[in-house]
């Protein structure tokens, strides 16, 4: 039986070139996981093909293994959640011995998130990652308290952020792009972004969670053992988009890995249009463990429907004045 012509035409989806990159390193997909929301990738293996996404961004790792905080570690909030895990993890040794090899064997690319309490911690972690198999690059989680500055969060201070980025850039494998991950909890995110870019960051990941608090109406105390926690999920998406928009407007040549509340392909599209070259899917994975693969497919379809032949043509598109773009079809 042959399908009639019309039906064939109807199912024809314009094929979109979805190649993306992080700091020059090519990715098969612009969709990545978000640090801390996919552990080290393994547990998502039953739900989708991990090699089909851009990379697994691994849970932020520190030099030593960490137990993490006492429970409760989370509370659901309207269209979001707050968490206070405390960076539970195996430390860099465990990462190098158990987690990265598992990913590399399967051809899954990893983008390794590192965290520390001192500038030197970050540098040491970056150095340890030199030559690690399957590692595509490094995301520097600077939303950590700096013990040398009375616990002030690195990312709240442009100078402290720049110092970490410079140290990591110097210590890291030159082939590993270094992305600084910014917090939205600042008066001027562009200032922090600029400091990181000037210090040698190859790109910026944004945003980390917003500091939040939930009080349990029964115990009448903060729900979280850690009192405050990080707010994530669709609730924060407008804030994340605003940060991406501002930073792309100010620093149009700095690549951005956008994240914060992405749940669908159209959400991802908003980040791309605002200036992100790739996106991370975080909390949505808890709702839908196959979200990264689904979002890749939905984004490809959305781009095709809008006449884009290449993902790259859509990056930052919302900033262009209407007369800068040809009517009808966009991109080439």
């Amino acid at each position: 039986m042959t399908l009639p012509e019309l039906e064939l035409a109807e199912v024809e989806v314009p094929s979109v070139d979805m190649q993306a990159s992080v700091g020059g390193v090519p990715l098969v997909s612009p969709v990545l996981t978000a640090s801390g929301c996919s552990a080290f990738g393994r547990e998502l293996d039953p739900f989708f093909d991990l090699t089909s996404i851009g990379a697994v961004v691994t849970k932020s790792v520190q030099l030593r293994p960490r137990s993490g905080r006492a429970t409760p570690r989370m509370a659901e909030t309207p269209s979001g959640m707050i968490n206070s895990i405390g960076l539970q993890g195996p430390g860099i040794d465990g990462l190098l011995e158990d987690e990265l090899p598992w990913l590399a064997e399967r051809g899954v690319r990893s983008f390794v998130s590192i965290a520390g309490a001192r500038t030197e911690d970050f540098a040491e972690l970056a150095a340890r990652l030199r030559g690690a198999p399957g590692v595509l690059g490094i995301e520097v989680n600077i939303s950590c308290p700096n013990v040398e500055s009375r616990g002030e969060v690195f990312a709240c201070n442009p100078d402290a952020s720049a110092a970490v980025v410079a140290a990591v850039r110097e210590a890291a494998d030159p082939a590993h792009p270094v992305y600084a991950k910014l917090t939205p909890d600042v008066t001027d995110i562009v200032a922090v972004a600029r400091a990181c870019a000037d210090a040698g960051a190859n790109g910026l990941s944004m945003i980390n969670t917003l500091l939040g608090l939930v009080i349990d109406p029964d115990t009448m105390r903060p729900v979280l053992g850690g009192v405050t926690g990080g707010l994530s999920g669709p609730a924060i998406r407008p804030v994340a988009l605003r940060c991406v928009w501002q930073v792309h407007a100010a620093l149009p040549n700095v690549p951005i890995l956008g994240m914060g509340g992405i749940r669908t392909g159209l959400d991802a599209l908003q980040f791309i249009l605002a200036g992100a070259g790739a996106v991370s899917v975080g909390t949505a994975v808890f709702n839908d463990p196959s979200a990264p693969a689904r979002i890749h497919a939905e984004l490809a379809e959305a781009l095709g429907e809008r006449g884009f032949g290449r993902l790259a043509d859509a990056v930052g598109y919302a900033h262009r004045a209407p007369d800068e773009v040809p009517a009808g079809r966009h991109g080439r």
Partner: protein
Amino acid sequence: MTEGSGTRLVQLPSGDRVLPPVPGSRTEPLGEPAPPAEHAPVQGLAVVVGSRPVSAYTELTLEAPDIAEVAQPGQFVAFAVGGPTSAMLLRRSIAIAGVGDGRFSVVVSARAAGSTWLAGLRPGDEVDVVGPLGRPFPLPPPGTPTLLVGGGYGAAALVGLGGLLRSRGHEVAAVVGAGDAARLCSVEDLAAVAAPFVVTTDDGSAGRPGRVTGPVADLVSGAGAVYACGPMPMLAAVARLATDRGVPSWVAVEESMACGVGVCMTCVLPVVGADGRSRFARSCVEGPVFAGDRVRFADVGTLPPDLVGADAMALPHPPDAPALDEAPEPEPSAEPGADTAAHPTAPTGETP
């Protein structure tokens, strides 16, 4: 109906999943960590084919052959709740109560908004479900007499196990308890497979007045393996009774879960590992079934200083940092709430 149709459960291979006989020594834990399930979870839409009130709860039956045909007793599923425009992002974990004919059943206690939504599903509705999740109850060596202990809706999670144990020739005793008669669950299903079978209620409104621990204390010595599901204090008491008498126990714990699949680290509790060292174990993928004498019940909700990696949580300076996920823990000994003044400090250092 699907309850107790344990014969439809995939038969377990009698290989490494069956535990070695109890060593009897109490210096090391009696139970090995529970092995993982045989089948990976799947995600999809399940169709509600039945809903009926069961005492204070709602029993739902769902058509989902991919899950029903591979689920093992002790496993659970995670439902997305609230429909496509829901403000509730996180799944709700519910134990599988029975399987059969491509269907599985669950017993839902309507508490807050998400479980209330679940309990309100009607036949014909579709619901997004992930499962089967978690590690099943390990089966005892052939011939071992067993004791099942269920509290509240936790009893539902034991129905499949009871049927399977019986079909494999085990003696099965059971104690089922609840606060009051309305919160008893799965009484008929368990009565059908267990003897002796004892019911307790705290208020005496059904069965023996008092907690399950009374009958359990009487029955545990005759058992070679104890299986329990219910509230944490009950699990702690049952595990203790079993361990004190040298009987291995398996408890299915209930910790607050954000993802149910092992990626978020919210569902942890302190558990003694195979190497004898304690770690925060994820109850969704390393549990929910743990050896009863490996769970450090008294330390749940705290950060015991001897945990692997607990040392890395202490700050060299007094904590005045935001209690972000990214922030180190205050000294483990600090009062909860000690970082109440936590806030991000400004770049210009305006705050003292």
